[in-house]
């Protein structure tokens, strides 16, 4: 109870804060809406007041206003910021409450909050802000799609491209026509008062409701961690069906104004589909290439690199929207094309920035979308018609299930790895509708039917997100669907996968069959010989994929070590270091670790902590305009650095093959030789001269130290030594090597 006390009081304090903020936002929002009417009045009022002030001031001097209140000028950004802040606090709040986020997916909670806020606003009697279509399509949707497209797992996506396309195109068409047609049939039933709804409106409605929504799918699937295949199937479908939705929507909209449909219109529709989708992809690819090309020249202006990625992608989206092409496909194509080249060109920091900004924006967007969905639900004019709504929901489910089963039957004839019944179930169940359907519905112009349609759409959205979203996780566990395997990058996998690719290409050549592998190989070759030369700067343009993979892996591991060191938990460093490279010796390791005495452990911990923190602090001082000469980015030292890193790795790896009972000491020593540590070695003695990276003397000396004291042969000899003595020696060496990074001091030890 005593423990819960402070935690509880924190939580209650937090919630009080949140509710205060809520009221503030609501009231300011309402003031904003009501104030909107007054804005026109105010300036007019102001000007007549001014001469008044003048005359007043001449008449009797007004005291200088120390504190004045001028909410009017900052109202708009203030309200927007307040809304966003509220949304994010809500998101935070869900994770403070321990159990809810396990049961209810975040999207549901956010919609719930939106409903609440909408209810409060309505109760106050004001107009709530609605999910404006422009706001949605131009500001809220692009970050989410860009985030998804940039981090799309290309290999899996391409391997399943056929299946995804079939689901996206044929599946959506089937859904649209089935739902539209059946709803029309339902409307024709006597006694339902829906006879006035014509076929084209029904088809239009069917189109809007049939599209699987990427935002909702992402939000729910993100939390259940199913295996990559299913994830990419549903998600890929939700992305690619945008082209179909756009075409069908515009088609039916035109037709419902024109009134009649001819065969020519149908043919034009099909052509339009190809233009929309391929055109979108092309626009995206062009911007992607531009972005990659630009990133080639950014070696001296690293700070603005991420902006290029974002802006080119956004321009791709907007350009596609100008021509009524599929903006989503354009955005995806841009991200996919740009990514490999940009990643080869930008600095590590920019890469991290891009990643985090994308994640951040998409997170904010998603949160806002769901909250606004809730608010709009409460606010919007509704026209509830039991038959229509219930039949819509039922038809959505039925058509989805039928569509998936039928298509899978056909697809499985062409797939090597067939989709099982479980897979089909998840694909069908994961067809969630979301805010895109809502926004498209909002664009409808037909007045009375619009409200009925909107109500039905909202019901479907709520049903899929709440019911399907909440139950999918227990169902996944119940059906024991394969989950996402934790992926540690493995150099073996990479080598063998490439080997197998070559093998299969060769076999296809022998069979005389130009298959999948053949074209992939051709593309890779083209990429290597022509494209990379143009789009990647410097020597990295000729770097084979395996090498970049290897370097990336090494760097990641190095960073991880430094970061884990700052937590200053010694056993975790040891286990993480030793677990990285030495697999099944874990049991031996764990037994070995506690043998270091407590006091020694404390000492080592203190040394590590202080040293790694020093590294951090040195890194933090920088000026806004020039990035610190980071050895990772300095081209001159980069080549040398890489070579040394490779050499160091080689020597380091000798020590990791040392047998089990000598585990802790070599691994502890390993921390000392982390590339990071050596690289950011600004000698204490030389700090007045300013920060200067000195990679060259450092590593070699350090390595030579190690090689002298402990070659692989010698390690076996030293097994015989008394453990205590060894520890003491190591302790001393360790403390010296960590606290005296400069090359001069190292000579003492050797």
């Amino acid at each position, binding site marked *: 109870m005593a423990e819960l006390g402070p935690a509880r009081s924190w939580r209650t304090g937090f919630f009080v804060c949140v509710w205060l903020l809520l009221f503030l936002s609501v009231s300011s929002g309402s003031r904003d809406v009501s104030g909107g009417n007054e804005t026109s009045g105010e300036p007019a009022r102001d000007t007549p007041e001014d001469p008044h002030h003048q005359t007043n001031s001449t008449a009797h001097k007004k005291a200088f206003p120390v504190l004045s209140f001028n909410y009017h000028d900052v109202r708009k950004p203030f309200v927007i910021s307040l809304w966003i802040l509220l949304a994010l606090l809500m998101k935070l709040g869900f994770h403070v409450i321990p159990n809810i986020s396990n049961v209810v997916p975040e999207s549901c909670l956010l919609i719930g909050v939106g409903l609440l806020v909408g209810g409060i606003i309505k109760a106050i009697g004001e107009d709530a802000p609605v999910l404006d279509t422009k706001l949605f399509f131009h500001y809220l949707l692009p970050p989410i799609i860009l985030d998804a497209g940039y981090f799309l797992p290309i290999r899996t996506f391409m391997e399943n491209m056929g299946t995804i396309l079939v689901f996206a195109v044929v599946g959506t068409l089937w859904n649209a026509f089935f739902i539209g047609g059946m709803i029309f049939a339902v409307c024709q039933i006597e006694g339902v008062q829906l006879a006035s709804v014509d076929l084209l409106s029904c088809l239009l409605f069917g189109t809007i409701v049939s599209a699987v929504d990427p935002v909702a799918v992402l939000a729910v699937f993100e939390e259940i961690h199913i295996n990559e295949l299913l994830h990419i199937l549903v998600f890929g479908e939700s992305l690619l069906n945008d082209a179909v939705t756009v075409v069908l929507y515009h088609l039916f909209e035109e037709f419902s104004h024109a009134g009649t449909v001819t065969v020519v219109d149908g043919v034009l529709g099909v052509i339009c589909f190809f233009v929309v989708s391929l055109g979108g992809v092309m626009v995206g690819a062009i911007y992607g290439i531009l972005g990659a090309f630009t990133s080639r020249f950014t070696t001296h202006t690293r700070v603005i690199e991420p902006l290029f990625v974002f802006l080119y992608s956004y321009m791709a989206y907007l350009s596609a929207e100008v021509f009524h092409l599929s903006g989503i496909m354009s955005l995806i194509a841009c991200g996919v094309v740009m990514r490999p080249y940009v990643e080869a060109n930008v600095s590590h920091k920019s890469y991290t920035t891009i990643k985090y900004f994308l994640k951040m924006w998409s997170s904010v967007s998603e949160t806002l979308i769901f909250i606004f969905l809730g608010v709009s639900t409460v606010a919007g004019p509704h026209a509830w018609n039991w038959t229509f709504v219930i039949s819509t929901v039922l038809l959505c489910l039925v058509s989805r299930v039928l569509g998936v089963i039928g298509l899978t039957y056909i697809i499985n004839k062409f797939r090597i790895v067939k989709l099982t019944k479980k897979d089909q179930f998840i694909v069908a169940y994961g067809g969630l509708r979301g805010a895109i359907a809502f926004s498209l519905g909002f664009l409808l112009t037909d007045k009375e039917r619009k409200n009925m349609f909107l109500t039905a759409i909202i019901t479907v959205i709520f049903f899929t997100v709440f019911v399907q979203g909440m139950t999918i996780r227990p169902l996944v566990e119940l059906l024991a669907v394969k989950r996402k395997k934790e992926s540690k990058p493995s*150099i073996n*996998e990479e080598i063998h996968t490439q080997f197998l690719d070559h093998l299969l290409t060769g076999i296809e050549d022998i069979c005389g*069959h130009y298959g999948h592998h053949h074209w992939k190989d051709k593309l890779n070759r083209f990429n290597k010989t022509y494209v990379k030369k143009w789009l990647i700067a410097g020597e990295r343009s000729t770097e084979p994929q395996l090498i970049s993979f290897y370097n990336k892996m090494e760097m990641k591991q190095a960073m991880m070590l430094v970061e884990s060191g700052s937590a200053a938990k010694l056993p975790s460093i040891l286990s993480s270091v030793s677990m990285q490279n030495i697999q099944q010796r874990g049991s031996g390791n764990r037994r070995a670790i506690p043998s270091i005495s407590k006091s020694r452990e404390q000492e080592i911990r203190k040394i590590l902590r202080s040293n790694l923190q020093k590294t951090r602090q040195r890194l933090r001082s920088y000026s806004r305009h020039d990035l610190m000469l980071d050895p990772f980015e300095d081209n001159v030292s980069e080549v040398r650095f890489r070579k040394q890193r490779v050499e160091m790795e080689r020597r380091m790896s000798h020590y990791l093959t040392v047998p089990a009972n000598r585990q802790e000491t070599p691994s502890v020593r390993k921390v000392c030789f982390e590339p990071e540590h050596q690289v950011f070695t600004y000698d204490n003695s030389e700090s007045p001269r300013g920060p200067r990276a000195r990679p060259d003397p450092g590593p070699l000396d350090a390595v030579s130290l190690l090689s002298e004291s402990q070659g692989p042969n010698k390690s076996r000899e030293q097994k015989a030594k008394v453990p205590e003595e060894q520890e003491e020696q190591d302790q001393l060496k360790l403390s010296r090597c960590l606290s005296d990074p400069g090359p001069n001091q190292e000579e003492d030890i050797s």
Partner: protein
Amino acid sequence: MGSSSSRMDHIPNAEQLMQETGFSAAHILRLYARFEFLDKDERGELRPEDFGALRGLAMNPIGDRIIGAFFSRGKETVDFPSFVRVLANFRPTETNTIRDGGQSFSRTRKLKFAFKLYDQDRDGKISREELLQVLRSMLEQQVTEEQLQSIAERAIQEADLDQDDAISFEEFKKSLERVNIDEKMSSHFLR
């Protein structure tokens, strides 16, 4: 129908091959046609030069290993049954009909084939030198010896569980456990 059955008579042991490998008659015919195409001198058997005539294979970094896989130890030529047997390794497995035991059997068979390509001296292990050779051929002289060494070192460290400084078949299988071998090592053409 008549023509295909008469052509099947040209092929020695067609029935037996079909049984053994699971190929259908149509497939055997197709493969025979391909075999005849490759066999320019109409000898009834293939030699390494016949394979080497394929341009794609010549450009393939591990082309010579693949060609070598067709020739069993000591033999200079490949006859049609051996040709078919090797290619049968790349048939997609019917996952719906084979139960779990069958599935892993075919996976193991495919992996064994790949392993043989690495392990040129057939000692049952991929030594460091063999791995280096593979890396060298795949990376096509664009990297330094140092880098190759460190990659090979790292790869062996990662995979080598019994510390014998080489990768055995079991370790090879384990390092590829996350890869869907059935998908990766199958060709549609050979269904």
